[in-house]
């Protein structure tokens, strides 16, 4: 009885699959690409536990267990890269609320024409490439003939070499990001605010609520679900200081403050071809991020209704 009903179920499922074959065809390109270029490399991760020799291939290279993980934990670079990565991540984490504040303030701008111009202008830096941003910073912050040099000279002072300072690296990294992306990142919060029903504000006005009270009791609660989702995603990337900008901003002078996991993985793996060592460092990084994400999502699910899945 049970058997026949489940096989009938199965048949119905198969029928539905057959009827919707077109949908599977639409999915096919994305699935094939992911299998080839994302899932296949996941299998390649086992080289982190092997002594990978390109001539032998992944399968036939000898197993070495945790040798390369130990090598990383015992190396001088371990504490430096972890410290820099965590510090820069936490630093940029602190700037997380800025797009929210930005969106709330933009939402308060009443003059529509001005508001539109303001938004367009503040979105603009988002379209500049990382290379141009770093090039801009080098031009503007050059102590010799850059803008900052000129400003210091106005006051008769000598400009510091910000680009060559290990201790300034994190600030440059974080604040240039703030400059470039705060406007753009606020879009999503502005969208959430624009879905607030006007009658809510009207009712608040009738009740004599001040502007600040409307922000406090209408706008902010409206933004919290979006903010929590983005926050969880952000924590999942806690050990993920992006390669692109860090690598470009690096130079011999600031290297002690600018070497992060992603740049180290690149140098070890592709510049000096220590494939297994690099894969081990990378895997360590990914596992920590993944664990953090699961953990934070779990906590968020437990204490609020917000969750990624």
């Amino acid at each position, binding site marked *: 009885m049970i058997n026949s009903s489940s096989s009938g179920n199965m048949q119905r499922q198969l029928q539905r*699959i057959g009827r*919707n*074959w*077109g*949908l599977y*065809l*639409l*999915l096919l*390109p*994305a*699935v094939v*690409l*992911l299998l*080839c*270029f*994302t899932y296949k*490399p*996941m*299998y*390649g*991760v086992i*080289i982190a536990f092997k002594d990978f020799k390109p001539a032998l291939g*992944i399968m036939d290279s000898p197993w070495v267990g945790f040798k390369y993980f130990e090598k990383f934990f015992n190396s001088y670079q371990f504490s430096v890269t972890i410290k820099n990565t965590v510090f820069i991540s936490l630093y940029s984490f602190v700037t997380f609320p800025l797009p929210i504040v930005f969106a709330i*303030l933009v939402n308060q*701008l*009443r003059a529509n024409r001005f508001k539109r111009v303001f938004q367009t202008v*503040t*979105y603009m830096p*988002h*379209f*500049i*490439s990382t*290379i*141009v941003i770093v*090039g801009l910073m080098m*031009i*503007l912050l050059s102590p*010799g*003939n850059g*803008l900052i040099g*000129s400003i210091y*000279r*106005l006051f008769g002072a000598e400009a510091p070499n910000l680009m060559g300072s290990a201790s300034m690296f994190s600030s440059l990294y974080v604040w240039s990001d703030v*400059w470039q992306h705060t406007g753009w990142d606020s*879009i*999503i919060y502005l*969208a959430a605010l624009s879905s607030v029903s006007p009658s809510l504000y009207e009712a608040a006005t009738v009740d*004599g609520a001040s*502007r*600040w009270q409307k922000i406090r009791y209408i706008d902010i609660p409206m933004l919290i679900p979006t903010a929590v989702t*983005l926050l969880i995603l952000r924590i*999942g990337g806690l050990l993920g200081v992006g390669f692109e900008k860090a690598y470009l901003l690096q130079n011999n002078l600031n290297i002690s403050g600018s070497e992060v996991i992603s740049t180290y993985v690149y140098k070890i*793996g*592709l510049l000096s071809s220590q*494939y297994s060592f690099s*894969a081990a460092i*990378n*895997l360590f990084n*990914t596992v920590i991020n*993944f664990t953090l994400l699961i953990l934070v999502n779990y906590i968020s699910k437990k204490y609020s209704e917000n969750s990624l899945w």
Partner: protein
Amino acid sequence: MEAATKLALQPKKSAGSDKIMETLLYIWAVIVLIIVLYPLYFIIIASFSDPSAVGSGQVWVFPKGFTLDGYKELLNHSNIWVGYRNTIVYTVVGTLIGLVVNVSAGYALSRKDLVGRKFLSLFFIFTMFFNGGLVPTFLTIRDFHLYDTFLVMVLPFSVAVFDIIVARTFFRTGIPTELWEAAQIDGCGNLRFYAQMVLPLSKPIIAVLALWFAVGQWNSYFNALIYLQNENLYPLQLILRDILVTNQMQTALGTGEAAQIALRLANLLRYSVIIVATVPIMCIYPFVQKHFNKGVMIGAVKE
């Protein structure tokens, strides 16, 4: 009586503090505008100025010692134009591939009657949080013989799971189930329905995803740095890296008067090349702006 005066007074009082708040708000907005715009404006005026005037801090508001040498110098660097051509091709082809791959996947996943929807969604979302990392991916690309080819720039990394989720959310709310049911009764298959009904109704989401892809393609340098060796395939961004960041122009110069002139040009080139590389991609945004309404953006993170 007392209550009445209170009521009468209240709007007046809050209007006063509102006015201060309003003023502060606009002061803030103007400061933000200056902070965002001035560095960009400075690059523009510097690109038209005598580099020695820029270097000695005489250029603040208007160009000084007006010159077009920086832009003329661009013509002498054929690699910039090769890079430009490559970037345009990568951007156009990469955006088309990205749209086909991701919009289709997003639509299929939006359909409630898709068997295995949960598993497929997980299959996609998992890749957002876990990946093989740099070296295994590099080895895979090499195994597929894609290293140092045109294709590596447009095909292997064209799946963008975040974009698929955004598209899926759009289709769920934007394409009513009844539409598909009606089409089905008329004997319309999934593919024809997708091509003739869904896509024409989805211009906003296509425009937004196209913008994301185009900007990403235009600006990225990571894949080119890792997977390209042949300079004839280099995108503009890698050429820019040589000019702006690693200063390969300047270190190759040496000394003497000829070197002085070359140094001057190299300095000017840094400004003009920024303008030429950045303006085209910024010009796309206004065309897509109207689609950035709440309908598209609101579903982006939720679900």
